[in-house]
């Protein structure tokens, strides 16, 4: 019950997500979720960049 209430109060984020999901798309999403043969992507993390180093480089370029 608590979980359901939490789901009801989802934050409404705009961007392109502002558009309501069509019934056809919702049905497709259910089909895709139930399709065990569908490729599932894992992706890959990247190392963190050094913020100060990036800013120093751009500052140097701007003084030239």
């Amino acid at each position: 019950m608590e979980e359901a209430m939490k789901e009801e109060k989802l934050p409404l984020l705009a961007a392109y997500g502002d558009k309501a999901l069509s019934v056809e798309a919702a049905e497709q999403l259910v089909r895709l979720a139930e399709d065990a043969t569908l490729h599932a992507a894992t992706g890959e993390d990247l190392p963190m960049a050094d913020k100060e180093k990036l800013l120093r480089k751009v500052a140097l370029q701007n003084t030239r």
Partner: protein
Amino acid sequence: MKGDFFWVGAMATILKRISFDKDLIPLVHDFDCAPEYPPTFWEEEINEWIRLDPSAKDGALYYLAKGTEVWLYANEDDDIVGYGSLCNSNWPDPAVVQQVPKLKRVPISLIPAVGIDRRFQGGPEGAETAERYSTKIMNHLVFAARRHTDRQSFLGLYVHPANEKAIKLYRRMQFGPFTQKYRHEKAGVDYVSMILRLADYPFQSEA
């Protein structure tokens, strides 16, 4: 050693990420994803999105404050190669859930904007497909989306139907067509959507 051959494996691409914030605006001041002039509608949109003033109620800084994640990607020379972003969808709305009761009542992840600076498109030079900047950036967005275990295991995006280069990349990354459409009033066209199933994230919480 003369006459000897040495096999040197393809070099792994070095790409680093940094979470975007207002301090980093100088890094994207000259960001340009349009290889030719004049830029297309979508290229201009991507160029503006990352450096737009939040008072415009659009752009990276505006949506950062609303929970969207935005990253810049830098190469080994600390040049900004591109950027990517991630938010959650506003789906599903209660009316749709009523009609499609099996639909999970949690959102999916969406990529609101992603772009590569024209200097680095197709790069690094001579890199295998898996080592291209475009692949690395998309793979990072996939990885970041998987960490949102509060969402459905799908990553979606909208793309201008004439943006063939991007559609080709998304297909290569295994995105498939999705029935959802977005009417982009300013562009005057329906953006098409694509979707990718995500593997479950193996960890419950970050250490």
